[in-house]
């Protein structure tokens, strides 16, 4: 009996040991995580930073964790930035490089296989190595800069214990950093910012709808759109290229993967004649999905030729938005469509028709490492047009132009050293991907904007649909025009992801986007002639949704009965401000979403197409249609709004009930992140609050002999959850409080310095 009891107790002990040792990929075992020395409790929050020696380098760190890096040479500055990026953001850097290399599953297990399946076949690690070799020959200064940056990263890793809990949580060890990884950021950002693929949906619209309906509901280039540049530059088109498909028969209702179309950004520059102090102003607030840590990292680099302040992307030693001693710049996403999708004719799942001949698919096989599972094989089929994609019973081939070699890092490296408009736009002439609108301002009162990127030449008349896969693919030709302008008569320039110009050239899927934000920025900039830093800050925080006034115009022809008194009152009294404590904003957001839902229903049930029109296009369409249709749609909108909450329930709510959002930790582990409360705005406001938000806000004021900066970062400088700078700026960001930046070549002039790293 004693023996049986002993065996039973041993069995339960063994069971406990197995359970507590089990590693459910990608996470470490419970035993390892919770036990003192192997787990989370022993990770220090305060780190003693050990710097390497023999460098002409001093780094001062302020009370926000922002590094000020001083050296006589640019390569030592790069070393210092690499050191600081590794200290604060190494997990984020490694995540980016592993993703682009298609090695994420080796760190995160089976759930990351789809990511590797996307990235691995593009062989970006090979392309990055080749570009680096080219830089070694053709751009030695940049090559040395990248090599020294990598040495800085690795110097931190070698001399310090990485105290990031994420490495413990994922049972991973940091790998060394290679210079070619710095080049991977262009592909990473291109996937985030320039991977739109709604060609099947667009083709359906082109096939199904008469042009008079298409041009109102899904306008490729509406007449009233405010373009970034004056619309007089004619882009090149090549009429000899094959025509896109006409009247394609898609066997079934093909729907592409969900595309995040909420990403966007704002930037603008105002000439000194339109400002109160006679100083040129440049403002920027890029909109991205906010994670902790933020995608951007603030830094000051004071070297020989490189003397810049602004936002870097961890993993690459460049200031992508900021200023140097004479110029300032900011970015917004170009949102150009760089994806060609070809409809294929196939047989037996193995051959495709090309110029009358059946050609077998090319096949490639890749091996990926999967944490906890060993290795796995990925098989990729290709045609001459690009990678094969199967959706339901239909085959497509797709070419994603940014998958080619990209030299954007070199362009940005030269741009941040530019001293005037000419050298600025010349540097960006060689910029590839992802397409960005670079706003510009300088101490000599020049403002300008460059819409930079490589736009593939499309057939004349192309409207965004599918291309014919039975014919040869389009040749790799790109529009050679540089879209740029400076010093306009109206004294301001801005971009908010709208079309660069209006000339019939197909830039992207702007045909299903609202432009309320664009119009609001334009109105505000036009209306005021005494801009100050303070009023620019207020504008970046503006929460007026212009769609309200559009809807109000529509409703004025349709008086509502007493059941909808609360909506009538809304239209009579409200100012359209999506403030977090506003009851009217809460009601309007539901009304707006009801309009969008009705637009979707109308598209799918009445027009028999999948893609919903934008709210603006839908209201424009209704305004031109019969009163009976308007009344029907209106009744549906009201009924939908009414079904959500009663009038009494609406009266008790404020917009904060729905406007709060959750900023996930980069790991996307459940529960890890911050609930951000009391955030106003919506997808149409300048202060955007949708899937994307302003990840930082910056304002640069150009005085005669210096540039003053004001910034606000959503989150903090550190990517470590156990660090004090992990999210210490989030409250300031939420409240719209800016900090004054420090830009000086004299380290002794800096304020609020809490740490100094001396490498000498």
């Amino acid at each position, binding site marked *: 009996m004693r023996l049986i009891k002993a065996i039973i107790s041993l069995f339960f002990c063994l069971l406990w040991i197995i359970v507590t040792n089990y590693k459910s990929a990608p996470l470490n075992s419970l035993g390892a995580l919770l*036990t003192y020395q192997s787990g989370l409790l022993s990770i220090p929050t305060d780190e003693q930073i050990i710097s390497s020696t023999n460098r002409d380098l001093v780094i001062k760190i302020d009370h926000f964790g922002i590094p000020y890096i001083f050296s006589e040479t640019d390569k030592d500055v790069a070393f210092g930035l690499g050191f600081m990026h590794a200290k604060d953001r190494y997990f984020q850097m490694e995540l980016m490089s592993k993703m682009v290399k298609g090695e994420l599953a080796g760190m995160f297990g089976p759930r990351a296989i789809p990511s590797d399946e996307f990235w691995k076949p593009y062989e970006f690690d090979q392309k990055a190595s080749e570009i680096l070799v080219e830089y070694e020959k053709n751009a030695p200064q940049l090559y040395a800069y990248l090599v020294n940056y990598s040495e800085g990263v690795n110097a931190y890793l070698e001399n310090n214990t990485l105290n990031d809990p994420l490495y413990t949580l994922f049972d991973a060890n940091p790998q060394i950093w290679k210079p070619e990884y710095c080049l991977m950021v262009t592909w990473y950002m291109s996937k985030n910012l320039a991977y739109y693929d709604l060609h099947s949906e667009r083709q359906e619209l082109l096939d199904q709808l008469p042009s008079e309906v298409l041009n109102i509901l899904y306008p490729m280039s509406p007449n009233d759109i405010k373009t970034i540049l004056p619309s007089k530059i004619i882009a090149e088109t090549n009429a000899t290229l094959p025509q896109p498909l006409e009247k394609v028969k898609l066997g079934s209702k093909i729907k592409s993967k969900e595309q995040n179309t909420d990403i966007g950004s704002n930037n603008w520059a105002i000439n000194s004649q339109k400002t109160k102090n006679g100083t040129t102003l440049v403002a920027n607030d890029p909109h991205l999905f906010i994670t902790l840590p933020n995608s951007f990292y603030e830094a000051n680099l004071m070297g020989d030729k490189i003397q810049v302040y602004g936002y870097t992307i961890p993993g690459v030693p460049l200031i992508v938005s900021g200023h140097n001693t004479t110029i300032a710049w900011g970015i917004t996403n170009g949102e150009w469509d760089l994806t060609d999708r070809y409809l294929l004719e196939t047989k037996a799942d193995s051959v495709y028709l090309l110029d009358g001949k059946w050609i077998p698919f090319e096949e490639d096989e890749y091996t990926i490492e999967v944490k906890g599972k060993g290795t796995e094989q990925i098989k990729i089929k290709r045609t001459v047009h690009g990678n094969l994609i199967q959706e339901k019973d239909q085959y497509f081939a797709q070419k994603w132009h940014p998958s080619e070699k990209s030299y954007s890092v070199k362009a940005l490296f030269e741009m941040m050293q530019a001293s005037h408009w000419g050298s600025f736009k010349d540097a960006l002439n060689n910029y590839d991907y992802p397409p960005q609108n670079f706003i510009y301002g300088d101490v000599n009162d020049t403002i300008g904007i460059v819409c930079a990127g490589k736009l593939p030449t499309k057939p004349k008349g192309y409207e965004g649909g599918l291309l014919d896969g039975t014919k040869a693919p389009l040749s790799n030709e790109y529009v050679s025009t540089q879209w740029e302008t400076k010093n306009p008569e109206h004294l301001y320039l801005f971009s908010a992801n709208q079309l660069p110009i209006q000339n019939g050239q197909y830039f992207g899927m702007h045909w299903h986007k609202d432009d309320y934000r664009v119009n609001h920025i334009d109105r505000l900039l036009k209306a005021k002639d005494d801009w100050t830093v303070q009023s620019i800050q207020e504008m970046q925080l503006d929460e007026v949704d212009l769609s309200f006034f559009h809807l109000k115009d529509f409703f004025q022809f349709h008086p509502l009965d007493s059941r909808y008194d609360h909506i009538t009152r809304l239209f009579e009294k409200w100012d359209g401000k999506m403030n977090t404590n506003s009851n009217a904003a809460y009601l309007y957001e539901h009304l707006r979403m009801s309009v969008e839902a009705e637009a979707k229903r109308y598209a799918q049930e009445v027009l028999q197409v999948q893609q919903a029109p934008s709210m603006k296009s839908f209201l424009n369409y209704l305004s031109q249609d019969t009163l009976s249709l308007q009344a029907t749609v209106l009744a549906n909108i009201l009924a939908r709004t009414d079904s959500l909450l009663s009038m009494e329930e609406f009266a008790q709510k404020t917009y904060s009930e729905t406007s709060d959002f959750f900023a996930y930790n980069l790991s996307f582990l459940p529960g890890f992140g911050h609930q951000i409360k009391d955030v106003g705005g919506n997808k149409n406001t300048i202060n955007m609050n949708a899937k994307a938000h302003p990840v930082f806000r910056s304002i640069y004021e150009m005085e005669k002999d210096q540039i003053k900066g004001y910034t606000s970062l959503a989150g903090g400088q550190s990517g470590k959850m156990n660090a004090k700078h992990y999210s210490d700026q989030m409250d300031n960001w939420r409240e719209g409080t800016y900090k004054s930046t420090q830009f000086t070549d004299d380290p002794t002039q800096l304020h609020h310095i809490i740490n100094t790293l001396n490498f000498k």
Partner: protein
Amino acid sequence: MKFSKYSILFLLALLPQLLFKEYFLTLISTIIIGAIAGWFINEKRVFLKMLLVQFIFFSILFIVKRSSIFYLDQVMDNLELPYFLMPLFFIVFNSLNIAILFYFGYKLCKLIFRRMGTLEPQV
């Protein structure tokens, strides 16, 4: 004499969790110390005694090092769980874990040597 022998072995079992970065070493070491204890001592309620010793020890350790996992409070907040669950979870888990590992070694030793017929109380 008996007290000190017990104390040394029980206290020795607390050390691996402080020494090894690699959890596997902590696990093996604790089991081995448990097995050694199985050879030297013959006492009732070994599991409960180890549980109590580890509970007191880890509670102190947790209080001292609590600040290094302050960020987990945010996780509890996000998951709408009370804050006290986090220390409770850490302390209870560690108390149970070390006690079970120790007891596993202790019991295994007793079982093996009893089967071999060689084990006599070494007190």
